[in-house]
């Protein structure tokens, strides 16, 4: 992961908030935690303010009243974890992607967190899943040489769509977004020679 994960915790209990912070710190995850002890304004406003990728909310603060909104486009991509104090009733927690029982032991909670973060792809199980594949390296080489997506597709006999998927994965894995940034990476890793680059790099 290349960016700090923003986590918003909505929980009244200070002790639970601190406990969550301690557990999260052991996950090998770079995160920033913002805290709201209750929803004064709307949930929507909190999301706009903190722009979290993950929300961990007390079940009572984010009750099933709000359920109907879950499918709204404003929440696509957002992961919501519900804090519960007992084994939850299915229909009270269906608006959460995951639940976390704070009455559980430390090791159980650590496992739960681990499972959740692996499932949503914020923590990887194997360490090497972030290195680029050979195919991706081929694409990266051609990007650095200044070829367009269409040209790359032709050269490698794959569809433009596939090229775009490769590029997305390259950017995600390396944490480099721009063509000139990828070019620098390609040179540093000897995927291309600086002599091969035609004149000025474009972008």
């Amino acid at each position, binding site marked *: 992961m290349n960016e700090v994960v923003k986590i918003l915790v909505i929980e009244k209990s200070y002790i639970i908030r601190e406990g969550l912070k301690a557990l999260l710190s052991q996950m090998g995850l770079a995160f920033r935690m913002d805290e709201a002890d209750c929803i004064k304004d709307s949930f929507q406003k909190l999301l706009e303010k903190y722009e979290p990728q993950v929300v961990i909310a007390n079940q009572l603060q984010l009750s099933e009243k709000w359920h109907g909104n879950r499918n709204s486009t404003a929440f696509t991509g957002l992961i919501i974890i519900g804090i519960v104090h007992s084994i939850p009733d299915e229909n009270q927690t269906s608006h959460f992607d995951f639940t976390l029982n704070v009455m559980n032991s430390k090791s159980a909670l650590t496992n739960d967190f681990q499972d959740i973060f692996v499932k949503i792809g914020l923590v990887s199980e194997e360490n090497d899943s972030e290195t680029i594949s050979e195919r991706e390296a081929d694409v990266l080489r051609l990007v650095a040489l200044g070829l367009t997506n269409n040209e790359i597709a032709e050269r490698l006999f794959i569809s433009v769509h596939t090229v775009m998927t490769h590029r997305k994965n390259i950017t995600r894995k390396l944490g*480099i977004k*721009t063509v*000139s940034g990828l070019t*620098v*990476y390609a040179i*540093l890793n000897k995927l291309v020679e600086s002599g091969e680059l035609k004149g000025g790099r474009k972008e």
Partner: protein
Amino acid sequence: MLIHKDMKMADVIHLNHHLLHVINRFGIQLGFGEKSVKQVCELHQVPLPFFLEIVNTFHDSTYFPVESMLQFKASELIEYLHQTHQYYLDFRIPEIENYIRRLTNDNSFDEEIKVLLLDFFRQYTHELTIHINKEEQRVYPYVLALEHYLQDNKLEKELVEQLKAYSIHEYEEDHDDVESKLFDLKNILIKYIPQPKDSRILNLILHEIFELEKDLNNHAHIEDLILVPIVEKMEQDFLTISNQDKTL
């Protein structure tokens, strides 16, 4: 804890020395003595609420009081944004470039890598300069003219036509982010540069980039969330007035 008007300015710096650069943008320099924030602002004729809100958004990254910031005067805001641009171009950017030049001094890196980084950083500087020039030459003058018109209500037909020809929506739509290359540079330096014998200069560069990035983010937030709505409101007032006046 937010910065409060009755705190001593010297204590503000003790609390958070990163704020010095921001405070300079208001024309306020070191040598505060025992003066409070309020007194220093009065001395330099800086509007106190404006100063406090801006400084506090830097001090506490979760603090961004849109409602109260929408009360700012457009010309004040633009003066601040302008000073910020100057700071980037005249100070921060050359400083980073200097550090990059120094990378080969201790033989930590090959000349080739230095050239590569320098070249990349210059492309970034070029992008940033274009972005800033567009704002300084097109957008800010427009906003200032609009404010001027609304204050004086001078009904010069030519000016009114000029103002009608542009809208802040144009700016809003193509106001691109200038952080992508910086983001890339961070990862290149942190992850992909060959390990140097000594990374002290690299550390300095990274530190500068993180600071610049944070500053740019705050700056863009102010432009998008404060300047644009303030100007939108002014445009509405302008339309109302200019439509009422049949002579135009």
